[in-house]
């Protein structure tokens, strides 16, 4: 390899990666697919954030932990001898209990406090859930009960573009589940009575209250919905790797997804997640070696930061109107 002259560096940054993409298109497609799958999981976490932020204006830092906590509960209950689907049912019940408890013990007493105070309260919730989850089910990494839940295994190998692109069936299932969930939430928001109430609350708390919508009830529903999303995310993520609190760091990745997509937009969360996921993988794969590896840890944030400089409310966020 020639020495690091400026021309060489420019070549390595601007030309060489694209040459690589062109010469090995199968590898490129594979990278995009990997990025897409990671992105879908980011999207799912971001989706939980958006649901709660829209309905209660709370920046729920605990969403990442809720993912881990629900997955841990599911696996833990199964280890204690419950059949897989009974454990799944019971986990859903527990997530409802959590939503109820959060509304009663955290949100209701803190209503009308500044945003940052509520944000901090969800931090407290994070700590509590970490402690509780580890106390009940132990801190060691666990394997997701993918087989018992009849999640497909293996891979589909596509012979395209003169090479081999391998798609894990599990990942495809994950993407499908994500799609179904988003579509379901869309229908729920647009067509049902509760969905309309949710949108009303998101629009204005006070106006919603004045037409007789119960904020407390809406918050429980929203936190429960976020809990279900967290559970689905936890199952998919847990099936790809172990279930452990290391996931917590990955959950922080949902934050750039959020700012990219906007805090209040469900399609934004999905698109943002996919953009960040793909951008991160391509960046790491093609440009990472230039900088030394590990740029995955901050690339997402920098991508989001650059987008923010041009659109401060995120790609799909509602326009921020400020009045004196």
């Amino acid at each position, binding site marked *: 390899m020639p020495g690091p002259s400026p021309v060489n560096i420019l070549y390595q940054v601007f030309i060489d990666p694209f040459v690589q993409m062109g010469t090995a298109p199968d590898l490129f497609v594979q990278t995009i697919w990997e990025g897409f799958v990671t992105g879908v999981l980011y999207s799912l976490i971001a989706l939980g954030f958006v649901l709660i932020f829209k309905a209660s204006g709370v920046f729920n830092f605990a969403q990442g932990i809720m993912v881990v906590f629900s997955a841990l509960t599911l696996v833990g209950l199964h280890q204690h001898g419950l059949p897989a689907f009974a454990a799944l049912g019971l986990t859903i019940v527990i997530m409802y209990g959590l939503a109820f408890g959060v509304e009663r013990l955290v949100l209701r007493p803190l209503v009308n406090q500044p*945003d940052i105070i509520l944000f*901090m*309260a969800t931090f407290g919730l994070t*700590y509590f859930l970490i402690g509780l989850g580890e106390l009940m089910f132990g801190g060691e990494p666990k394997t997701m009960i993918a087989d018992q839940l009849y999640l497909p295994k293996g891979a589909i190998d596509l012979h395209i573009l003169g090479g081999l692109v391998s798609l894990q069936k599990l990942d495809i299932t994950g993407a499908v589940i994500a799609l179904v969930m988003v579509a379901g939430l869309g229908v729920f928001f647009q067509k049902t009575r509760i969905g309309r109430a949710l949108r009303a609350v998101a629009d204005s708390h006070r106006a919603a209250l004045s037409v007789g919508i119960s904020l407390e009830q809406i918050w429980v529903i929203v936190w429960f919905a976020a809990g279900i999303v967290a559970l689905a995310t936890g199952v998919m993520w847990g099936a790809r790797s172990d279930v452990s609190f290391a996931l917590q760091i990955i959950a922080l990745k949902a934050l*750039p997804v959020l700012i990219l997509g906007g805090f209040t937009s469900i399609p934004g969360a999905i698109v943002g997640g996919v953009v960040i996921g793909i951008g991160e993988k391509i960046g790491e794969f093609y440009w990472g070696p230039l900088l030394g590896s*590990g740029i995955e840890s*901050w690339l997402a944030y920098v991508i989001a930061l650059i987008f923010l400089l041009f659109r401060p409310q995120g790609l799909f966020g509602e326009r921020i109107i400020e009045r004196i």
Partner: protein
Amino acid sequence: MFYREAGQFKTTYAADMAVFPVLQDRIGFGAILAVAYLVLPFASEFLLHVVMIPFLIFSLAAIGLNILTGYTGLLSLGTGAFMGIGAFACYKLTSIFPNVNIIVWVIASGFFAAAVGVLFGLPSLRIKGFYLAVATLAAQFFLQWCFIRIPWLYNYNSSGSIEVPERTLFGIPITGPTATASSRYLVVLAIVAVMTWIASNLVRGRIGRSWMAVRDMDIAAELMGIRLLQTKLVAFAVSSFYCGVAGALLMFLWYGGGESGVFDINQSFFVLFMVIIGGLGSLIGSFMGAALIYTLPIVLRATPAALGVPLRSETVDHLTFMTVGVLIIGFLVLEPMGLARLWQITKQKLRVWPFPY
């Protein structure tokens, strides 16, 4: 009754603008300083090293973050990284110029942190609130990556960590393995005391008032003629300066060496807790918050053993996590304005005692 300022007349403007206009405050503050300088240096090595030094250092970091978040209203999650900048800058400076006094470099490292802080503060003009908080996460993760990936920063040590050399002040070692806890404590105390005094004057003056105007409503502040970019960047600079000095102190006078992992995202959250629990926009709150949040896990962890309850250490850890979480929520529910507000209420109660109002 105990805290009544009746009869204390202010006859000059200087007296009116004093940091402690009330006599009782002056006495109390003097007493605290006297204890801190004259009694505590003779306390046990353990008390100084485990409690007092970290408490002071975290107070300084909390003041730094409070300037940004509490006074200027810009939420930042990058405190840990800015502290790291301070530590690494101080390490590089003292390695390159070993003959210059370490105190000079500890202070100078703050300027490096300030410069980086300004750089990452630039987006604050366009983005606000939680969007900005996530943007500061970019600083946190990028800088943390730099601390690991740029070996020049840690002098190409094979361990990849800072190894604090021995440095002296007036012939007495204050850093490195031979420094006693009391000498390190006195240095930290002096720096923290001076910087707190500077901060208290900053926030009362023109700059502090423009910060608070920006916090309360930035558009209105702009209409009143406050330059937003300048004000916000100064806040970022001063805040990062304090965090940087705190980071340098943490590495040189407390840890005495360590990896960049010390300055991870959890450190940022930790300092943010101190600021929120202590009270946004209050210097004394920064100290109270640091004292509470720093000592809380230590006390909780020691409690089961002290009570004679046999628990495994992991279980204790988990219970500590849970209790800290519950206490944070409980505390926020009881007093969202933080410990500083409780202190104000207490003072008012003392003023009117024995009457209810």
